[in-house]
């Protein structure tokens, strides 16, 4: 750790719910089957698993996976399995990962997203005989780039100060 942790306000449960809803909403938008769109829901899940592992744990990931499965007309349980494993590894890493800088964290997250997509591909290969698409790498790169921004936004409410005065406006 380089600079020392700022003192954060406790997290608001409604903010977690709201952020998950917005991330799920992103998944509902009609991207039109385009490859390489980063899965913001997975990133937000990983963020809360890393920062609040007791509040957001594997059950939430499973449920979100089922909802995404039904929306995307994929096999029921495919995304659920992927999100469950993603969530498990994020929770396993959650103490270690916060010691890294934001970009190093992003690299870890990129590996997690790659693992998740490989699990999905494996499921398909075993059940359907369909292969894996090379556009996964684009998605991983975009997720890595998105992580610092997402991390900053999602922790912003906790960085507010309690008492404002002229010397400390926000």
């Amino acid at each position, binding site marked *: 750790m380089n600079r020392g942790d700022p003192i954060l306000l406790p997290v608001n449960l409604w903010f977690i719910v709201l952020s998950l809803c917005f991330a799920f909403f992103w998944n*509902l938008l009609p*991207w039109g089957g385009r490859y390489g769109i980063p899965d913001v829901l997975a990133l937000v899940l990983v963020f809360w698993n890393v920062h609040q592992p*007791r509040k957001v744990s594997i059950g939430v990931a*499973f449920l979100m996976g089922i*909802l995404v499965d039904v929306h*995307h007309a*994929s096999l029921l*349980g495919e995304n659920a399995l992927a999100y469950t494993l993603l969530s498990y590894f994020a929770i396993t890493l959650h103490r270690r990962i916060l010691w890294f800088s934001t970009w190093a964290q992003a690299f870890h997250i990129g590996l997690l997203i790659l693992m998740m997509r490989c699990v999905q591909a494996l*499921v398909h290969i075993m059940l359907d005989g369909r292969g894996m698409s090379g556009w996964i790498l684009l998605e991983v790169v975009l997720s890595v780039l998105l992580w610092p921004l997402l991390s900053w936004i999602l922790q912003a409410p906790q960085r507010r100060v309690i008492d404002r005065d002229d010397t400390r406006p926000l």
Partner: protein
Amino acid sequence: MEYNPPPLFRQGLSALVKVVVFSLFALCLLLLDSRTHILFVIREVVSTVLYPLEQAALSPRQAWRAVDGHFTSVVQLEKEILRLESEAIKNAVVLDQVRQLAMENAQLRSLLGASQHLPVKSIVAEILYDAKDPYTRKIIIDRGAKEGVVLGQAVVDEQGVLGQVTRVLPLVSEVTLLTDKDQLIPVMVERTGLRAVVHGRGQSNILDVRFVGLDADIVNGDFLVTSGIDGVYPAGLRVAQIVRVEKKSQDMFSLVWCRLLAGVNRHRQVLVLFPLTSLSGGVKK
């Protein structure tokens, strides 16, 4: 740093136990869903619950289209009207000829004692979104069980056959396109009447034409139409156009590729055709 002290004694289940339980549950769901249709209740319930959210998510695109359409210039609208009028006139002539032929056909059939052709009913549907799975080619349309959509119905657009309904939910339906790897459709070459089967390859809009003999009369540019012998797709609908024919002497069949005609303008509406006979048995997903 958090203000709440972590619970020291009541930690709940460990993450490892949770992941094993949920993973096994997810694997069970996967196996059940890929082999049987037991879980359709879950899908129907979740889909109905998600429907308002999906509509809300699609509303920016609808709003954009409405605004975009509103700002079309008068000149463009006039050109479009002119084009549609001339098409309507041409189609009216063809329609008259078709009516004439249908009457003749019915008379001949009754003379020969053959059974009559049933008229085809259809409903118009709009494509809501593409299913994001990169491994299947599916689209979601906005007509479901409530409007009478049935599993296995053919879906066409103005260029040709698009695909088949593979899952019916209360408010929406899923249509698997012909380009999906598991989709087959029996066709006939329009020019010669040669029958073959078209198989999706899962990529782009190029399809495989199978069971074409080495000596078959088939060339680039030939149109393929549905042959109607499966009872699912009405006969005579355009499907694809041949783009490549290769005859290698060591195989039993020629290598023929064709390009799907439908699905070029994805924002258009589609027609869901009601089947000629009632569909029984399983439809391959």
